[in-house]
């Protein structure tokens, strides 16, 4: 069964080709069946492969499906690699991906470009599977760029609106900054170790490189650059909120559940290199902690339902970075898994609200949706609880594990993470309370059909019980040094446990009760300024605009006519000038010609005699 691994990226690719080539002529049901079917077959196949893998004693397995290229000492096969880590990613991508495809078939039912949408979605799944299954970094890079392309295409799916196009290009170019670092990392690794095969690379690195020396630090820092760009972490995070311009299922699939976690996957996959560079690993933790706080504050100030979720994604990925940074590899992947469930759920539920409300995004113009949209409401309750990490949800188990692991390394980072957990509780329940409680504001509501309800229901179950689906990762990662599990009433445990509740209670006090003090605070001018600052995502867009974009555009614009070309034009002008001067001497007057000839002859004779 496992030998069929190479079929996984192939099915969605065939779906893409079919839809791209014949899409315009197909009936809608055929399109939906092709689009969902190719991913569905993938999900089924990966479940079978997963079962075979787990039964087969969890031995890592390789499947080569031909050679891509071989030059000199470089040889890149189309090789696929399956271990517990890639299996986890595989199940997330195909499982959650399939649910989102199903949901999309209802959500996009009225869109004119049905076929194009499913074609792009299938292309994305194919590239993502290539990314997680690749056994060498070059193939991984191919998937990495492929998901970036599909992300660009899908963010700008509604291309008539130039703002969507701008968001799409921003996402592509900003992640390409990270990708460039990744590619350089690849080149560095290859130049020094002469292979790009992932397991071999890490074995060689461990053998030849001293921990903390320049080469592993440089290589892992470059890889980190790639991860930071793709996973929207500081300083390349500002593309993700704008990426919400795409259709909501796209945000759920690409910008919450799968693609943005590719950076986590990359670092976890290359953990053998990162442990050789403790400085970089610490930087990973630091980036994670900072990002999770910055994004948490930004999420507090948003009013657009999708932007709140986008910032919460950045913040949750920050947790995963933090976990990677402190060496809690499997906790990071665990959180990746549960996050995929509950964040996909939240986005799909948000999509349901937006769908039923005719593209209304502002939570303050919703209100009282509890009775009108019970399915969406309960999905949000489950999703927000899991996002905040309340006990007995999947999000709780994974986040709690991260907090405990962080404490073992650095109490300061732990405090930041706990504060972040409180923030998470606050902004997630703020969303819930504002949108679903309170007075009813709007009338018009359309219903949703089973294709949208079923995925919501299944994802609700996964967001609650998804922690059970965890695949043991002990075979992949080095074990953390054993430490005693803190008791239930251990202060460390209690603080980690209760932090989200603090946020939830604060949100309830502020948005359910009539909190005079909070309103008074909100009216203060300095608070308004701060709020605006958070709303704009800490001003990163403005900074980058001034720092990079405008100088670049300025330089490009002033040199539009090519300064080098002007030098050649000057030569041409000089020739014309000389031509005019010599031409002026041609007067047609015989007297003058004779005189010049005479003088010329005299001058030549004089030179001849005198020299």
């Amino acid at each position, binding site marked *: 069964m496992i030998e069929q691994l190479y079929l996984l990226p192939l099915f969605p690719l065939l779906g893409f080709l079919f839809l791209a080539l014949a899409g315009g002529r197909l009936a809608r049901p055929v399109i939906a069946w092709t689009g969902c079917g190719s991913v569905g077959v993938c999900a089924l196949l990966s479940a079978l492969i997963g079962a075979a893998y787990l039964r087969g004693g969890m031995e890592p397995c390789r499947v080569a499906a031909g050679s891509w290229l071989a*030059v000199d000492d470089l040889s890149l096969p189309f090789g696929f690699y399956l271990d517990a880590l890639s299996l986890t990613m595989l199940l997330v991508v195909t499982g959650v991906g399939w649910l989102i495809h199903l949901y999309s078939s209802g959500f996009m039912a009225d869109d004119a470009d049905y076929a194009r949408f499913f074609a792009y979605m299938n292309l994305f799944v194919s590239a993502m599977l290539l990314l997680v299954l690749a056994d060498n970094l070059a193939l991984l890079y191919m998937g990495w760029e492929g998901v970036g392309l599909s992300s660009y295409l899908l963010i700008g799916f509604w*291309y*008539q609106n130039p703002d969507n*196009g701008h968001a799409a290009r921003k996402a592509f170019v900003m992640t*390409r900054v990270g990708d460039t670092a990744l*590619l*350089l990392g690849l080149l560095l690794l*290859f130049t020094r170790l002469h292979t790009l095969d992932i397991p071999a690379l890490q074995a060689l690195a461990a053998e030849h490189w001293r921990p903390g020396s320049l080469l592993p630090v440089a290589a892992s820092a470059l890889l980190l650059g790639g991860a930071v760009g793709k996973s929207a972490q500081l300083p390349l995070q500002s593309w993700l909120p704008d990426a919400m311009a795409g259709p909501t299922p796209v945000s759920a699939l690409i910008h919450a559940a799968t693609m943005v976690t590719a950076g986590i996957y990359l670092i976890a996959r290359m953990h053998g290199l990162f442990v050789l560079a403790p400085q970089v690993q610490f930087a990973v933790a630091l980036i994670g902690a900072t990002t999770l706080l910055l994004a948490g504050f930004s999420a507090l100030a948003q009013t657009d339902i999708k932007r709140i979720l986008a910032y919460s994604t950045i913040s949750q990925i920050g947790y995963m970075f933090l976990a990677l940074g402190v060496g809690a590899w499997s906790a990071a992947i665990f959180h990746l898994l549960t996050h995929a469930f509950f964040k996909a759920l939240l986005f799909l539920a948000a999509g349901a609200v937006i769908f039923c409300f005719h593209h209304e995004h502002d939570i303050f113009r919703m209100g009282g949706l509890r009775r009108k949209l019970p399915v969406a409401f309960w999905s949000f309750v489950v999703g927000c609880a899991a996002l905040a990490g309340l006990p007995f949800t999947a999000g709780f188990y994974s986040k709690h594990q991260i907090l405990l692991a962080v404490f073992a390394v650095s109490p300061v980072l732990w405090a930041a993470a706990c504060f972040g957990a409180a923030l998470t509780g606050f902004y997630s329940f703020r969303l819930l309370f504002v949108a679903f409680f309170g007075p009813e504001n709007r009338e018009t509501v359309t219903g949703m059909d089973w294709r949208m309800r079923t995925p919501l229901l299944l994802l609700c179950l996964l967001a609650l019980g998804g922690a059970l689906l965890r695949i043991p990762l002990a075979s992949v990662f080095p074990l953390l040094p054993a430490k005693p599990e803190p008791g239930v009433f251990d202060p460390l445990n209690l603080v980690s446990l209760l932090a989200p509740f603090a946020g939830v209670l604060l949100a309830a006090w502020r948005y359910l009760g009539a909190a005079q003090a909070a309103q008074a605070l909100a009216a203060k001018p300095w608070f308004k300024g701060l709020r605006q600052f958070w709303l704009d995502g800490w001003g990163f867009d403005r900074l980058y605009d001034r720092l990079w974009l405008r100088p670049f555009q300025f330089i490009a614009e002033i040199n539009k006519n090519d300064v080098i070309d002007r030098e050649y034009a000057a030569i041409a002008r000089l020739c014309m000038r000389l031509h005019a001067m010599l031409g002026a001497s041609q007067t047609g007057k015989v007297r003058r010609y004779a005189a010049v000839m005479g003088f010329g002859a005299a001058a030549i004779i004089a030179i001849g005699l005198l020299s």
Partner: protein
Amino acid sequence: MMLAMLIGILFAGGLAAWFCERLHPAAPARVALTALAFDAVLLFMLYPLAADNSAWIADLKWQWIPRFGIGFHLAMDGVSLLLVTLAVLLGCVAVGCARTEIRHRQGFFYFNLLFCLAGAVGVFLAMDLFLFFFCWELMLAPMYFLIGIWGHEDSIRAAIKFFIFTQVGGLLMLLAIVALALIYHADTGRYSFDYFDLLHATPDPHTAFLLMLGFFVAFSVKLPAIPFHAWLPDAHTQAPTAGSVILAGVMLKTGAYGLLRFTVPLFPDAAQQFAPVAMTLGAISVLYGAVMAYAQSDLKRLIAYTSISHMGFMLLGIFSLNLAALQGSVVTMLAHGFSAAALFMIAGALQERLHTREMGKMGGLWPLAPRLSAITLFFAIASLGLPGLGNFIGEFLVLLGTFKVNAGLTALTALVLILAPAYALLIVRKTLHGPLSEARQCADFGSRQLLALAILMLATLCLGLHPQPVLDLAQPSLLRILQAMPPET
């Protein structure tokens, strides 16, 4: 014999096309296509000969002017086989897109087109430097006419600019060729212009450097590299579509081929000494071309500057002087040939339909012409170097090879990966996306254009996913070049 036929058929076809015009207005195009088809058949017969992995696939040597040791010497190795194939393929594509665009003096048009191709094929095959120079000049005049007669509003100026630039480069090369032959004469007492003889000429290091520069300038004008690129944007903007396809797809490659075949092997020491400068020029071309492309509002000008950017990769790769980088240059030659030809075809098609090249006046074409739009998207993405498509393989291998030699310069060049999406997506934004500016008509591609572009797409995909046959074909010739290099100091 087959090699001479490759060139001869194109000459004969060109003459026949000119005379056929009086029989039927559509006859010249058919004659041209037939001639190219005959060449394609010959190439098919040559491919099996390449299988035995030796450097030279075919060799042909006739006397021409024995007094000066000038011979009609043609030979083909893997690299030239690939490039001749590219020339013939793009020739067919060019004929395909000229059929709707060219309406007057068709016979003379196809005469020029085929002579231009014959010259290019001659350049790729000539192993006698005099013959090489002859073919080099032979490409020029027909292209001058193609731009000047069938070009757009400012075509005469662009044609003259093109002619003068290449001519100055050619003059330097002629001087270098004659000097090299004289040095050979001084060494051995007999004249020869034969490539394999001149490989053994022993100019003193200083002279060798100057002669190398002569060749280098000639080829980098053609390439073109910064700062000799100024002719290219004008020539491309003004040329008819078929001219642009041949210019970008075939003629620019003669510059890269010349560097690979003559500049480096004839003067290995001087080339190695000069390599840092050449690589820097390559890196600057890559970045400068990308920034300039971003600034353009004329679609054809934009594509012309992207060509400069991609050609910079070739220069960088060739002077990195290791196998990966050389292979990367060869792949880039082919991949850029496909993608640039396709983009120029698209630009030409848009100009034909919308009567403008200004991207500001386009926009929102996707719903009107979905096939045209999807193909534009494909080639825009190919030119920004997405893995899985041909251009990526070339750029990746060049960067890989360069990294071994000069990591800092590679990192600098890699910045183009950020700039390339900026210009490539600009094409998508300004032509395909956005609201429809006014009620306008834009017919989608017809089946003939679709076929031509489908071939180019398929070729780009093959090159991106399975480049190994191309790499294997080029390998023996590239290894031969590297073996002749002085050992690293």
